[in-house]
């Protein structure tokens, strides 16, 4: 399960947000500029109007002066002269205002200067006409001149004022045009930009909501696996911890507290305080290990004991691994196992093993006793018997001779028993060297070993071709010897023994109850004879040590060990042996040997 999804969007989101903010800032600055332009344009308009008004006013002042003077000349009433007298002042003030208004325009200033000159000229004419209309200084020709000149100048003034108004209007129109063009272009651009920004934001919104959904899903998974982890820690009696090597901050899983005998999160873990829980016997080793962690950033497997809050001693096993994350900070991750139960089980197993070893040793010494110490007195008994029967037989009574014979037979039987017993125990204790061996060769060797009795009984042994297998050669040979001699021993009287040996390859599945299923293929080797057979109810017990089906020791001499050895040999080869029989018809012994 992939727990950490690939959340690439933060970077993309950041870029989208940056672009959107940039666009919005741009739009804002554009609108700000528009606003300012609008303001400028209205200001300019006001300016133009003001100039217009001032110029009109100037003209009207001059006209007032002219009208007043004209009234005076006609009526000779000095009251008419008042507008004329005041008009000069007013004209001057108007001029100052106009000069201020036209401060930024040199051409208009020039025009204003011309206008000023013209107005001064007009006033000169006005003064002249006032002077020549006076009764004392009356001069008809000069008065006419002045009046006429005044009229022409007045027209010039009007003309000049019109011109100046035109100039202002021109400027206004030009500016207006520029603004117009700017204003008409930018709205479309702004809207486009706004739409782009909006789509970006929508896009990122979708991304964020997608991420949120995925986060929710992963959060759920994380929650489940965290719960699972916590539960498995409790069940498995282990815990995890993290130790940030840079900040020395240690975090325990809940179960770590429980393992120490505390409720989860009941204290703040510190590297100095853990030693308090460690058993005094292990403190030394543990503190040097802690030093090792700090110096080498390594925590090999360590076994130690802790003392729980309630004084209980628990056995712990801890291993850690250093993790270096992307930021380069070193975190020691560790797992701690509570192996107390395991520990005591191990001790029990260890003790049982020791006992087993001891009894094995006893068995081995029994082997030695059987092989040497028991044989030695027996051999001497037999040797002494042989000396008596060789040299002193004639001097014995008849019953004495009989006893000696019986002692000899018993000693012989005891020898066979010891030999068989030894063979049985050696089947298990001697070296088991598996060699790839031709099984047919081993059968031939077994037949050679039994050649005397085979000849004596006129036995016929027919065998399939046998495979090459990894076996302990002398044991398989022993197995064949035991099986064949068993058949020969229990042959039917007056019928020549016939043994058929069949071999086929089978799969373990065909015999699910008998065979070890982890091994796939087996060879099934069947020994069929025409002997006296046995009651099938004994087909299991026949393989048990010292189990004999015949009591008449003289007729069928046997120790009850031969088939037990067979079973042991087959088991040594991870195989299986079964027997079946029809009394008075014959027996079938089947061995399965792994391929």
């Amino acid at each position, binding site marked *: 399960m992939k727990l950490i999804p690939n959340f690439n969007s933060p970077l993309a989101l950041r870029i989208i947000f940056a672009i959107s903010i940039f666009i919005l800032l741009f739009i804002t600055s554009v609108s700000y500029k528009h606003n300012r332009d609008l303001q400028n344009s209205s200001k300019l308009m006001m300016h133009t109007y003001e100039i217009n008004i001032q110029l009109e006013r100037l003209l009207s002042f001059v006209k007032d002066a002219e009208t007043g003077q004209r009234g005076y000349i006609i009526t000779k009433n000095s009251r008419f002269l008042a507008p004329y007298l005041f008009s000069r002042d007013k004209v001057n003030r108007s001029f100052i205002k106009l000069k201020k208004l036209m401060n930024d325009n040199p051409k208009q200033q020039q025009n204003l200067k011309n206008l000023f000159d013209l107005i001064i000229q007009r006033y000169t004419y006005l003064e002249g006409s006032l002077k020549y209309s006076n009764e004392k200084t009356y001069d008809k020709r000069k008065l006419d001149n002045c009046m006429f000149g005044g009229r022409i100048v007045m027209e010039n003034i009007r003309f000049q004022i019109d011109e100046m108004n035109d100039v202002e209007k021109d400027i206004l129109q030009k500016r207006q045009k520029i603004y117009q063009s700017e204003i008409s272009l930018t709205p479309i651009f702004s809207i486009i930009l706004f739409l782009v920004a909006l789509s970006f934001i929508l896009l990122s919104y979708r991304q964020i909501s997608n991420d949120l959904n995925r986060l929710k899903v992963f959060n759920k998974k994380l929650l489940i696996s965290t719960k699972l982890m916590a539960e498995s820690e409790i069940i498995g009696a282990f815990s995890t911890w993290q130790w940030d090597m840079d900040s020395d901050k240690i975090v325990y899983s809940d179960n770590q507290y429980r393992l120490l005998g505390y409720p989860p999160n009941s204290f703040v873990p510190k590297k100095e305080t853990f030693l308090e829980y460690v058993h005094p016997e292990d403190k030394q080793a543990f503190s040097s290990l802690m030093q090792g962690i700090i110096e080498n950033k390594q925590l090999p497997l360590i076994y130690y004991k802790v003392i729980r809050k309630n004084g209980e001693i628990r056995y712990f096993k801890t291993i850690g691994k250093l993790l270096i994350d992307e930021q380069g900070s070193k975190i020691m991750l560790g797992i701690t196992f509570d192996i107390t139960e395991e520990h005591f089980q191990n001790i029990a197993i260890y003790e049982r093993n020791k006992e087993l070893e001891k009894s094995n040793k006893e068995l081995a010494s029994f082997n030695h006793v059987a*092989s*040497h110490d028991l*044989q030695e007195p*027996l*051999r*001497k008994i037999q*040797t002494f018997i*042989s*000396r008596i029967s*060789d040299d002193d037989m004639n001097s014995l009574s008849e019953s004495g001779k009989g006893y000696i014979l019986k002692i000899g037979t018993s000693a012989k039987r005891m020898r066979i028993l010891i030999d068989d017993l030894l063979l049985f125990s050696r089947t298990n204790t001697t070296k088991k060297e598996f060699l790839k061996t031709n099984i047919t060769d081993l059968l031939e060797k077994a037949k050679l070993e039994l050649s005397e009795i085979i000849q004596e009984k006129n036995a016929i042994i027919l065998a399939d071709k046998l495979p090459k297998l990894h076996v302990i050669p002398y044991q398989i040979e022993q197995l064949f010897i035991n099986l064949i001699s068993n058949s020969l021993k229990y042959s039917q009287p007056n019928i020549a023994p016939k043994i058929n040996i069949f071999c086929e390859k089978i799969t373990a599945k065909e015999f699910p109850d008998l065979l070890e299923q982890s091994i796939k293929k087996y060879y099934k080797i069947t020994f069929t004879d025409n002997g006296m057979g046995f009651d099938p109810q004994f087909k299991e017990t026949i393989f048990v040590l010292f189990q004999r089906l015949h009591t008449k020791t003289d007729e069928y001499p046997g120790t009850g060990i031969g088939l037990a050895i067979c079973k042991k040999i087959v088991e040594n080869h991870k195989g299986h042996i079964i027997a079946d029989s029809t009394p008075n018809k014959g027996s079938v012994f089947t061995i399965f040997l792994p391929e």
Partner: protein
Amino acid sequence: MQKNALHILLADDDEDDRLFFKDAFEEVKIQTKVQFAHDGIELMAHLMHPETILPDILFLDLNMPKKTGKECLIEIKKTEHLKHLIVAIYSTSSSEEDIEDTFIQGANIYIKKPSSFDALKKIINEVVTLNWHYHTSGLNRDTFLLRLK
């Protein structure tokens, strides 16, 4: 004491076995001189003695007190003037382990103590008439354990 008599030495702690051995040699029609050592220590002391005339064949029991036959065998094969001594292991044990060990340590033949006097005589006859030159020159695992036909 005849010069051409075969010199035999048996190291065995068992009195009866020494008796059987002595009797058997007396009945075998070969000129022999049979000597006995009662344990491993006595055997080694005898062999190491500078005046000892070394036997032609040493019969060595394995299971002896104080010093076992195997220890004696190792010591003999390590000692310069003894290492060519013909050593016949003469033991009750017929365990593969004993046969294997003594073969590796350089014994010449392994004899399992028989359980009849007749067989013992046959074995002795076989061993003393054995072509030792042939038997020592090429040691053979198959002929190491003496089997009577």
